[in-house]
């Protein structure tokens, strides 16, 4: 898999390359900054507009292109919070339940598998590893119909189990791959030393390797958070009961029922729904950037 190995090479030189010497004359440097700032502004404008619109009265939203609200209206948040069947925090809590269990599941199952692939010897290891890499490229929709049938026969429709349980079965090969790369970089002597001190494989994993893998686990946790928080297709398929809606489903229901008139409240709830992602992004940038540079995660 030359395809996947190359981006991984980046990991070897993990430490941020030192700031290169500045190039160009002050003039070209200035124009570069000017262009980059303009591009950045264009990129951020939709988000800024969304945030500012959430503070405008619905009637003003499409009349003013400006970002600064002329009439501040905080009632959008209150109205939006109570516009659906349940107050909005119910949907936030629903999403949070799915996210927390998905994170726990991904971290444990993927770390276990990664430890076996990275640091243990057993028959079939290479074959299984190749199989694991193969599933990286498998489009999920191929499995969709049979998985749906299995979940419905288990009576799991309208529960969060179809969204959570697969994460406990190391089905996310990206995270296994990321952790394998990370664990391979740890010195082999660690396992030997732990073994001599009487640790079995599981204790070695739990006490020696896991604590050293905190950065890789943080990356996994943040990516799981963001993808699960945004996840629309799974909940759309498995959750019919409105009281169990996750945030994306709730927003979609909002748009369908009120989207033609209550722009302000809808934008307010949109802001509420993306705020955790932006928060996690700001808090965990380092791990995110390392993660995509290492395993090509999105």
């Amino acid at each position, binding site marked *: 898999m030359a*395809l996947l190995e*190359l981006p991984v090479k*980046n990991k070897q*030189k993990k*430490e941020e390359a030192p*700031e290169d*010497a*500045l*190039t160009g004359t002050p003039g070209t440097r200035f124009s570069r900054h000017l262009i*980059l700032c303009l591009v*950045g502004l264009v990129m*951020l404008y*939709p988000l800024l507009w969304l945030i500012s619109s959430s503070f405008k009265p619905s009637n003003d939203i*499409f009349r003013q292109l400006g970002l600064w609200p002329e009439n501040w209206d905080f009632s959008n948040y209150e109205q939006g919070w109570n516009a659906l069947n349940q107050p909005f925090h119910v949907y936030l809590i629903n999403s949070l339940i799915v996210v927390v269990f998905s994170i726990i599941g991904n971290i444990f*199952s993927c770390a*276990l*598998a990664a430890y*076996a692939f990275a640091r*243990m010897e*057993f028959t079939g*290891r290479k074959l299984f590893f190749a199989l*694991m890499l193969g*599933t990286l*490229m*498998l*489009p*999920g*929709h191929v*499995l*969709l*119909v049979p998985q749906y049938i*299995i979940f419905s026969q288990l009576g799991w429709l309208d529960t969060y189990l179809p969204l959570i349980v697969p994460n406990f*079965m*190391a089905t996310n090969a990206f995270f*296994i791959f990321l952790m394998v790369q990370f664990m391979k*970089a*740890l*010195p082999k002597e*660690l396992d*030997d*030393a*732990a073994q*001599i001190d009487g640790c079995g494989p599981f204790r070695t994993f739990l006490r020696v390797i896991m604590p*050293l893998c905190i950065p890789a686990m943080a990356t996994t946790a943040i990516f799981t958070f963001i993808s699960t928080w*945004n996840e*629309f297709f799974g909940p759309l*398929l498995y959750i019919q009961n409105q009281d169990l809606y996750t*945030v994306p489903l709730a927003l*979609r229901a909002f*748009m*369908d029922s009120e*989207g033609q008139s209550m722009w302000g409240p*809808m934008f307010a*709830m*949109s802001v509420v729904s*993306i705020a955790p*992602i932006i928060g996690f992004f700001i808090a965990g940038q380092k791990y995110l*950037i390392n993660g*995509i*540079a290492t395993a090509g995660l999105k």
Partner: protein
Amino acid sequence: MSVLTKQASGAAAALAAPARGTPKRGPSRRTNQRSGYLFLLPWFLGMLFTIIPFFASLYLAFTDYNLFTEPNFVGLANFQAMFEDPRLLQSLKVTFIYTFVSVPISLGIALLVALVLNRGLSGLSIYRSVYYLPSLLGGSVAIVMLWRYIFGNDGIVNGFLGWFGIQGPAWVTDPEFALSTLLVLNVWTFGSPMVIFLAGLRQVPTMYYEAASIDGASKWRQFRAITLPLISPIIFFNLIMQLIGSFQTFTQGYVMSGGTGGPADSTLFYNLYLYQKGFTEFEMGYASAMAWLLLMIIAIFTAINFIASKFWVFYDN
């Protein structure tokens, strides 16, 4: 991160020292075997949960399964029906246009911005974050909804065009323009390939450029002769991942059109149609056949890319 590894190796050296000279011991090969499989237990379960549905869906593709009655084997009927299904052909067209327009554009922009950012700028990490943030949000319902209003009749795009006296079209409701709003959305998320490019560019040794400029090579020539070959594996990687991802677009089409793929099927992405067939019309045999067609399309494009890569991707081994 490197600090941790250093600490770890220090600890390991300290721990290993007294053991020197003792004969190599440790659990027998058999226990090691067993615990290897034990660690993989969740993964084995996951593989079962992948492999069984994989073959089940292959089987269902040749049946008329509808979730309520027993499946009957119908041979190639689903595949024949697909090629006579105008909505299916439309969904392929939408998905292809989306992929082959937005992937090259967003990769081009990603590479260009990465090149500029790699030229030694103060504030690199701020720019990188600002450009990267949209790619975390592009798949969220909130942003696709926002896009609907940005491109709405009296949305900010038409407002902006109005400053120049241009009467913008009804982007969202005109079949000719609806897909283009989603192309823009996809290009907006160029940040994640950009970060991968940037990581790759940082690995190119600066001495190559120094040597080249001593020899009098122009910037353009340096880019062609040094940068491009050395990051070609990364271009290749990004291309494959973006293609695979964009063939499977769903949320954007669904939210933009309220689940219909409209107006006039102009945002009917392949997976959206698959969803409609399988889960609103319950033609699950047909939906399985569609899934396999998509798998084959993706496999073919990936294979073409791998073969073509022999001619343009440079591996420095």
